[in-house]
């Protein structure tokens, strides 16, 4: 019997982080390939709502670690607790969501449990002696495949949008309260938080997004995109060149240096589809791309495309939507 796959879930103030569900989907997929069971662990305090939500997924065991020292995240306390859980479960693979919080403690956890480490995984494939993990290198210009040597256990953090949360199988997860043998020791004191640059837009929860790229040509011509966004009830966003030109505020940037989104509809207007942009939106359910260049890489991740001038197509799309809504 293969060792289990352990999924480390993330929560904030008792609410499950969106990417926790993607991590469950990834863990289930890995276990299906390797032939082991899937277990999950959640750390924190006051977790009732999150526990109820997670217990409806198909998991062999769901370890819940509640302790006042875990109420807010610190790497020292979290890693201390996770080392105990990893020692007890003996997983072959530990799957974590690739969030800022995970990256903060991942190196430390790998050092403590002496496991191999493969961050920012976007997929995997079977090889003769285990799995090959795919991850971007050199700013996403290349994809690398990484093998783990000698049957070592491995920590992998999965990039947002690489595994669909909808793919997480539901079922029943027996909840096991995990008793720590030592009190977790926070290694930093939380003094507070501060907003960066005023109002911020969280696009990660948006159901529909209209994103504008360099192909818009001019900041003065943004109204075609605004009209479409209004007709759809969508948020307006952009790729980096549009933001750098000051045509939209920086908090609406999608991509590796901006936000990562997974709406049900993503409309890309005049976006060529550099990998730095694609990593931020490829988790979208349905992608529509409008571009003049038939070879633009955006068409390779799109479901529907139109090759032509966005300034002609976008108003026609807006009109067709309004007509359909009236009919």
């Amino acid at each position: 019997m293969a060792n289990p796959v352990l999924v480390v879930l993330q929560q904030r103030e008792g609410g499950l982080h969106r990417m926790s569900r993607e991590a469950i989907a990834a863990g289930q997929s890995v276990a299906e390939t390797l032939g082991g069971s899937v277990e999950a662990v959640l750390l924190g305090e006051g977790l009732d709502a999150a526990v109820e939500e997670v217990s409806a997924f198909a998991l062999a065991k769901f370890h819940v670690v509640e302790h006042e020292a875990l109420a807010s995240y610190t790497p020292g306390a979290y890693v201390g607790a996770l080392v105990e859980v990893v020692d007890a479960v003996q997983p072959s693979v530990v799957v974590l969501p690739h969030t800022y919080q995970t990256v903060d403690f991942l190196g430390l956890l790998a050092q403590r449990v002496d496991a191999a480490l493969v961050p920012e995984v976007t997929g995997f494939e079977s090889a003769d002696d285990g799995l090959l993990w795919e991850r971007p290198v050199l700013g996403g210009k290349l994809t690398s495949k990484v093998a783990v040597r000698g049957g070592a256990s491995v920590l992998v953090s999965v990039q947002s949008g690489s595994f669909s949360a909808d793919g997480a199988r539901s079922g029943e997860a027996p909840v096991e309260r995990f008793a720590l043998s030592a009190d977790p020791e926070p290694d930093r004191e939380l003094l507070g938080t501060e907003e960066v640059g005023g109002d911020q837009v969280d696009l990660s929860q948006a159901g529909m997004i209209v994103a504008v790229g360099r192909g818009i040509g001019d900041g003065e011509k943004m109204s075609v995109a605004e009209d479409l966004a209004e007709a759809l009830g969508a948020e307006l966003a952009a790729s980096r060149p549009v933001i750098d030109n000051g045509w939209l505020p920086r908090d609406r940037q999608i991509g590796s240096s901006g936000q990562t989104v997974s709406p049900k509809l993503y409309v890309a207007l005049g976006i060529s589809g550099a990998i730095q942009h694609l990593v931020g939106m490829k988790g979208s359910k349905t992608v529509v791309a409008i571009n003049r260049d038939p070879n633009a890489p955006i068409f390779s991740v799109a479901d529907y495309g139109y090759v032509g001038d966005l300034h002609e197509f976008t108003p026609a799309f807006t009109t067709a939507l309004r007509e359909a809504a009236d009919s």
Partner: protein
Amino acid sequence: MRIAVCIKQVPDTEARLRLRRDERWIDEEDVPFVINESDEYALEEALQLAEASEGEVVVFTLGPERAKEALRKALAVGADRAVHLRDDALEGGDASTTGAALARAIEREECDLVLTGSQSDDVGFGATGGVIAGHLGWPHAWLVMGVEVEEEGTARVVREMESGVNEIVRLRLPAVLEIQAGLNHPRYASLRGIMQAKKKELSEVGASDLDLAPEATGAAGALTEVVSVGFPESGEGAEILEGDAEVAARQLVERLRREAKVL
């Protein structure tokens, strides 16, 4: 205060990249190498902290002979000394082996604070700082946007979080801080700095100096191995809607309603 700064020399990602013949990495011939971006910010932060405390900045790198160029540049902008972890046995590892080797080298120099960039622009694990912290038994923080050393042997640290919020935390020192690009303005080397750098100490250490067995470090000791790299594949491709804009737009709305069911 003696501040260690760990830097990495990386290929300039703006350069045109070609695959090496074995397709396990890029062909490094003709590719310009630079100091990793966030490491430059870490170095600047260290120089400012040292200036405020009459401290010393010791810069470390692990890499082949060409990495000396990165150390010389760091000395030219103001670092006091440099330590080059230069040994074929140390090469080709991952964040775990590199972090372990750097931690040993830092211990030898008895540093009070370690700064490094948050992520390398080539491999981009973002984990080396955490590994160093684990080996030293010090607290650490990733994605640091501000550092203030306090009198009580602590540091007030601003950390970047997702969706435009910074978190402010207090850590006890010594600590490892992984600096995010953008928190300061890295200075340029002056001509005088470049001349002075030639006289500054640049020492080399190897695996044996760090008590690391050759089979436990570098490529031999790493638990991970890159088996191939390639340019990302393109997907299946979109269904391209034909006709003029009005016809295609009506078709699109129909598809989004009936096929994709997103409207």
